[in-house]
Structures are given as structure tokens and as C-alpha cells.
């Protein structure tokens, strides 16, 4: 998200899901849409069926490629080289949208200068793709408009994830593919309310509505709204919190609905941290692997047992409604947090309902100013929606960008390879992806018998050529080792992975993939490089 904020001024999907129907070119890079966002995947396939050009760029031959007219399979972690190479070709062949660049962007000259490094030879050598295939999709993207780009964790979960996002934004800016229906830079958000959790300020550097905690005016505003003194130093990020626990700086952790033992890269480090905590509170609907380390576990109500709102990937705030009473003695999370706050004599936590909380959100969050329960009864509203007469925003930046001055900013980029590359000791690259039938650490989906039947256990997807080299047959148990650890898993031989690349999900605690993934962080976004881990594979006898 930080990459998009730097380039465009806002870190969310610029356009709407429905825009897939009007785009003529849909480029999907680093996203396994039919598995991770299935109904958007349906829509993309439908668009391709109805005449849109669907371009899929992924190191794996994902299912969506079957509906695509163009499929490029670059080496993992080389997206910056690919995207910058495309931008260079578009500019050199006169396909750039010069009037858009002149009117709505800045930093173009520096950007062009940085493109000098991305010669066809360099791009081909880095990505492993033929130049003609790269220029072909560059030409389509630049000319068969409107063109939209969709991406997900395949772009961001890298030690250079911010650069990859900026490279995506650069490409959209070069062709003027922003600020109109069917265009845009569209990050697909993974969890149901990850957009909402960001919007609501569950981040160490911002209050609700991306308002910075280190801006004194903003701090004052929230101090008066909340009738309390507030800290002005940005806090620790997710990964930094676990580091701080191990260093002794943090000894108390309050964790709501997360399972980092399965989801965090290099999870051995997380285990060490959880063991070290003095006091650990977990609030969840199931006793997750992480919750077994807790000192207190609070039973939360599921989404079917409470009222509230979720914000989806297209910035649409939608209603969640209580369908049944909370199971057993469980309670909605908003009730639990309020009761803890009251017991600590914190002011301003006696809400009568989630709707009352939303009224406060409306007051302090400009982008949510006009999003009331009454208005989102049926269809939801897309932020920004500053007041109750505002109709919502299906696409961002029709006239100006959210950066100071209203212009978008090109980013000169230097290619950086992934933190780990294949070598003699760890000759394969492991990437993580998702199964259609499971969700994240699968605490929910593995408790649905049918979903477990459709996808019962973890597989290491491995190219047959690599399997032969290591003497592995389909279905064999193997050990996958990285610099951080070893997991055991069954191998599935498939050419969806290119030679040298293998993949696993992280849904199964029996084969905890994130025990071995690389926690190398992007310096800006602090996102770990779970998409590229150097590993070795050997059969278990």
C-alpha cells in the first residue's frame, strides 16, 4: 500500500469490481484470482469470454491462464524488470499517453532516465521471457484501452514489494490508464476486511482514514474527539512486534483473530516470541495454534452473530447482520474490547450498538463521513464518501490524484533481485499460494467437512524435471528445507510450476510452510518475502 500512496496518494483499489466488465485489457499479475478471489475470477473469465483481452503474468501456470489469451511466466521476483521493460518499450515506440503524462504527473524525466538500465537484454536475462512476448503484451496494454491491472500478494510479498507496486503504477501512468472506468491499479485485498482494518487505523502510523499519528494537527483532533492524551510516535509493525517481544521490549500482547504461527514468515521466530511473553490474550472463535500459547482466551462471536460492516477490496462498506445469537457464552469483539476499556477506566467506550460506533467513525474519518447504516441498507457505499449526500466513489482520481498538488508521481526504480536466490545448497525457489478450498490458516475451512474432502492436505507442487533430479515420485513424502527450517509434505508432480520453482500453500498446520519462508522485509512496507524462498527438497525414505 505504501507504494501506491507514494505514486498516487491513496493505497486502495482505484476502480470497481464491476469495471472488469468494461475493461478491454485486463492484466493480472501476481494474483491467483480464481483461488483467492473466486468471484472476481469468474468475472475476469466472463470478460475474456465476452471479448476482453486477458493477460496473466505469474511464475505458476495458475487456472486463470486457461481463460487468458496471453500468459507470461517470468522468474519469481522479477516483476520490476518486466514492468519497467514494458514501460520503456511503450515510451520508445510512441505509445505513451503524452497529454496525460504532461497534465497529471510529475517526475517523468527522472523516471525515463532510470529506464536506461532496463535494456531488452537485461529484461530478457532477468525475467527469462522472450522480448517479443513482453513487447506484445506491452503493446496490447498501451493500445487496447481501457486497460486495467489487477495484482495481489505476488507483487507485494517481496523484499522489494514497494518497488513492484510502484512499477505497476508507473506502467498505468505511462499509458494514462487511471481515473476512468475500466482502468486502474487494482490491488486485490486478501481477507474480507483487511481494507476496513487499514481504514480504521489498525496500523502503527495512522489513525482512521489514513490520518498520520505524527501530524500534530491530526493528533490534536483525535485527542479532542476521544477526550484523551495520545502518543505521537508511530508504533511497531506486525513483524517488528514479534522482534520486540524476543528483544524484551514488549511483554504483553493482545491478539484478536490472528494465527501468526501459520501465517507469519519464519514462524519459528513467532513461536519463540509467544513463549517469551509475560501476558498473552487471544480473542478468537476457535482455539488456534497460536491461542494455545495464551494466558487468557476470550471466545468471540462469528460474523453471523453480530452487526457491523466490512469494507471489501473495492472500498465498498457493506453491512454484516446478526443472524443467530452468539454461540455459547461468546461475545462480539466490540463488546469485549469495550468491557476491557471500561475496566481500565478509559473514557468513551460505552456504546449501545455497532451503529453507535459507526456514528463516531463518521465524525472522525473524512472518507467515511457519509457512510451511515441507513444508506448502506442494501448495496453498500464506496469511500471516499465525505457526507451523507455524496453518492460514493466507484473509481478514484477522475481529475486529480490524492498527492499534494494533485499530480501522480513516477518512480525511478533500480532493479533489486529477491533476497534469496537459488544456489548450490538451496537450488529451488519456493513460492506460496492459496487453495480455492481453504482460507488463510484454515481455522474455518478445515472445520467444513466438504472443503476438507475437496482439499485434504498440503502438497508441494514440483516440476517433473526437478522431481526426477531428486528422485521424487508423485505422492512421495519429501523434506523441504530452507535456511530457517524443514517441513515434511507430499510432492505432487505438475508442470504448473516452471522448472526450478515449487510451491506450497500455508493452510495446513501439519506442514507449516511459513516455518521455512523468508522474513526478509521490504524496507518501506515491512512486508516479508514469502513469495521467494530458496529451498532444497529431498525424498523421505
Amino acid at each position, binding site marked *: 500500500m505504501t507504494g501506491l500512496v507514494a505514486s498516487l496518494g491513496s493505497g486502495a483499489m482505484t476502480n470497481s*469490481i464491476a469495471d472488469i466488465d468494461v475493461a478491454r485489457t485486463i492484466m493480472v499479475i501476481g494474483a491467483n484470482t480464481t483461488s483467492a*478471489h473466486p*468471484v*472476481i475470477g469468474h468475472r475476469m473469465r466472463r470478460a475474456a*469470454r465476452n471479448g476482453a483481452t486477458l493477460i496473466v503474468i505469474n511464475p505458476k501456470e495458475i487456472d486463470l491462464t486457461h481463460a487468458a489469451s496471453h500468459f507470461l511466466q517470468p522468474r519469481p521476483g522479477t516483476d520490476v524488470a518486466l514492468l519497467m521493460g514494458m514501460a520503456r518499450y511503450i515510451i520508445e515506440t510512441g505509445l505513451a499517453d503524452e497529454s496525460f503524462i504532461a497534465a497529471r504527473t510529475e517526475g517523468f524525466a527522472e523516471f525515463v532516465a532510470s529506464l536506461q538500465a532496463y535494456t531488452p537484454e537485461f529484461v530478457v536475462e532477468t525475467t527469462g521471457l522472450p522480448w517479443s512476448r513482453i513487447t506484445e503484451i506491452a503493446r496490447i496494454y498501451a493500445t487496447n484501452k481501457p486497460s486495467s491491472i489487477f495484482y495481489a500478494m505476488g507483487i507485494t510479498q517481496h523484499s522489494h514489494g514497494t518497488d513492484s507496486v510502484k512499477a505497476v503504477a508507473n506502467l498505468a501512468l505511462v499509458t494514462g490508464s487511471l481515473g476512468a472506468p475500466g482502468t486502474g491499479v487494482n490491488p486485490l485485498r486478501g*481477507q*474480507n476486511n*483487511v481494507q476496513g*482494518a487499514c481504514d*480504521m*487505523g*489498525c*496500523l502503527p502510523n495512522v*489513525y482512521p482514514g489514513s490520518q498520520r499519528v505524527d501530524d500534530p494537527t491530526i493528533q490534536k483532533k483525535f485527542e479532542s474527539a476521544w477526550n*484523551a492524551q*495520545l*502518543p505521537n510516535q508511530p508504533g*511497531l509493525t*506486525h513483524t517488528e*512486534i514479534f522482534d520486540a517481544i524476543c528483544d524484551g521490549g*514488549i*511483554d504483553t*500482547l*493482545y*491478539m*484478536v483473530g490472528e494465527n501468526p504461527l501459520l501465517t507469519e514468515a519464519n514462524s519459528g521466530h513467532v513461536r519463540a516470541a509467544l513463549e517469551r511473553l*509475560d501476558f498473552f490474550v487471544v480473542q*478468537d*472463535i*476457535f482455539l488456534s495454534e497460536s491461542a494455545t500459547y495464551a494466558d*487468557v*482466551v*476470550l*471466545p468471540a462471536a*462469528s*460474523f453471523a*452473530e453480530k452487526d*457491523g460492516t466490512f469494507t*471489501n477490496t473495492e472500498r465498498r462498506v457493506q*453491512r454484516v447482520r446478526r*443472524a*443467530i445469537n452468539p454461540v*455459547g*457464552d*461468546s461475545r462480539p469483539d*466490540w463488546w469485549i*474490547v*469495550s468491557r*476491557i476499556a471500561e*475496566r481500565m477506566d478509559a473514557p468513551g467506550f460505552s456504546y449501545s450498538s*455497532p451503529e453507535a460506533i459507526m456514528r463516531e467513525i463518521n465524525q472522525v474519518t473524512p472518507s467515511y463521513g457519509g457512510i451511515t447504516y441507513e444508506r448502506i441498507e*442494501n448495496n*453498500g457505499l464506496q469511500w471516499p464518501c465525505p457526507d451523507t449526500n455524496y453518492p460514493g466513489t466507484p473509481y478514484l482520481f477522475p481529475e486529480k490524484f490524492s498527492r499534494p498538488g494533485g499530480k501522480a508521481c513516477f518512480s525511478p526504480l533500480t532493479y533489486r533481485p529477491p533476497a534469496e536466490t537459488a544456489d548450490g545448497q538451496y537450488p529451488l525457489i519456493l513460492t506460496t499460494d492459496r487453495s480455492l478450498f481453504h482460507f488463510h490458516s484454515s481455522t*474455518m*475451512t478445515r*472445520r*467444513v467437512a466438504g*472443503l476438507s474432502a*475437496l482439499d485434504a492436505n498440503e502438497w508441494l507442487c514440483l516440476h517433473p524435471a526437478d522431481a526426477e533430479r531428486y528422485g521424487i515420485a508423485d505422492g512421495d513424502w519429501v523434506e523441504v528445507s530452507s535456511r530457517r527450517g524443514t517441513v515434511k509434505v507430499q510432492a505432487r508432480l505438475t508442470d504448473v510450476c516452471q522448472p526450478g520453482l515449487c510451491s506450497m500453500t500455508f493452510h495446513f498446520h501439519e506442514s507449516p510452510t511459513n516455518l521455512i519462508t523468508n522474513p526478509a522485509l521490504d524496507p518501506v512496507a515491512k512486508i*516479508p518475502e514469502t513469495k521467494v524462498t530458496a529451498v532444497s527438497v529431498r525424498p523421505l525414505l
Partner: protein
Amino acid sequence: MTETCSFTIDGQEVTAASGTSVLNAASASGIYIPHLCNHPDLKPTGSCRLCFVSIDGGKPRMACREPVKDGISVATSNAVIQRMRVQVMELLIADHYMDCLACAAAHDCELLKISAYLGMRPNQLTRLGKTERNLPVDGSNPFFQFDPNKCVLCGICVRTCDEIVGLRAIGYIHWGDKTVIGAAGNRPFAESICESCGECVERCPVGALAPKTPAIPAREVQSTCVYCGVGCGIHVGVRGDTVVSVSGDRDRETNSGSLCVKGRFGFRFINHPDRLTRPLVRKNGELKESNWDVALDLIAEKFRKSKGRFAALASAKCTNEENYLIQKFVRVAMRTNNIDHCARL
């Protein structure tokens, strides 16, 4: 602007966007015309031969393939049309395995509805005798089954998987009176490319593609799916305090009624016996059941003492209101910005 046409159906004034079929215009106006193979989401094929109407007193024409026109006068039935429909139904019924009281589709079976509408008499139901169809039921998918002996070959499932899902996992297999519906490659559904989204099951007009554990909810509640960032609109079906079904919300712009396998069939975690139902507090090294007062008092006491050494992780699964409160709590009560969630994972 879409142009509209005004015309009459059985004397009733009807208005519909030009390009709409007479059948869809009638359905939208609450006027029933018998049909099996038409679905408003799909292109018409006109294969079931039931939706005949007479336009301006002319010969029977298929309402699903007849575009509305200004000033036309549509009759939804007459003696000839009634006779044609009964004959089509006799043929369909001769091929149809009937266990209606035990059939998952009984509550909204189009075949039953048409039979009732036409007033089919016992001799009409049996006149042609039964064909010797006893094809194996495909129960390979854990969520739904396919019973070819109940299939009316309307092709709605085939077109749904093509036009809506874009997958083409279902097709026609064999020719003539041997024609059946099947998953791609004539494999069992669970071994095919089928993604188990259930869009075909949702639209099957009879009991051929049917959920394995059908449950008609006592009531439905409009909500939003909890699985991924798409945020599909759903109706949560409930009996008592148990969630028994989920269906897509056709009026929601996000998904227009479409769902995936997790959204439609993945709700059994809600009432799963593993759900945490009481606060647990660690005593002598073990997590023991406790109560809210004990747990909350302990937390408040410990949190008070941990200021400066405290961090919190919020949840991308919780609501906006809850996440708002969690960060407010951390900032106001704990005086720290050490708050994050798993946005990056």
C-alpha cells in the same frame, strides 16, 4: 438510455426495456409463462418448448426468443398451446425419475410447477410409460450430487458454467436419446475441473443438481460473506440458532448473486462444536474454563501494569466497528501506537 416498449400480456399493460424477451418481461411483471430452459441470467436457447405464446393472435412462438415490441398483444395460452405443452410434459415425465416427496428440489421444482399449472391428469402422467433409465448418480462432490435420472436437459447448468462462471466444466455427453449432462471429460464432478461453486446447483430447475444436505431455512438474513476481500452479498439461512444455508444476494452490486465454494457451502464452521464458548484462563500451566468477570478483571489488571511494553494485533476478519474500537483502545487506554494487523500476510 435504454428504450422501453409498451405492450400487453393477457390484456395487462407491460413495459420492458427493448431487447428483453417476452418471457423475461412477463416474469419481471409477475406473469407466469411455463418454461424450463430459460433463466434471466442466461442467453435463451428455446430448447424446452414450453414457453409458447401467441402474439397478435398468430401461431405459437417461443416467448424466450421473442423480443418485446411496442404495441404487441401477447396471449400466454390458448387451446393449441395448452395441448402442445401437455405433450412436451408427457415426454419429459416419461423420462423423469420421480421421488418428489424426498427430492431436494420439491419446494421449487419447475417441473412440478408446470405440471400443476397445466393441470396434468394421472393418465397424462403415465400414458407414455416409463423409459428404462437407471443411470448412476454422481455423488463424488461433497456438497452436491448429480442425478441424471432427474435431468430434463434444459442446459441451464451448461450455460451457467460457461456464461456466468466462465469455466465450461459442464457439457452435453453422447447424442440423441442417450444425451446426458456431465462434468468435463465425462469424469465424476469431484475429479473434473469443476470448482464446486454451486452456481449450476442454484439454477437447476429440477432436482438433478441438488445440494446433498438441503435445508430450507426458517428465515434469511442479508449479510456479507466472511471469506475474502471480494465481499459478496449473501443471505444467511437460519433455523433456530443454527446457520443452515447461504445463498447469493442477487441485488448486491459486488457479486450479483454469484458465490464461490467457500461462500456458498463453507458455513458449517459457525455452529461447529470446536467453537470457543467460554473464556479460558491459564491456571497451573493449563487453559481452564472460566467466566467473563474473572477473565476481564485479570486482563485489565495485567494491561494496566504493562503500559510501555504492550502491543496489539487487530483482525482483518473483524468488522470496521470492532477494528475502530481496538485501535482506539490501544491508543487511548494503553497510550501506544503499537497496533497492526496481518494486512501484509
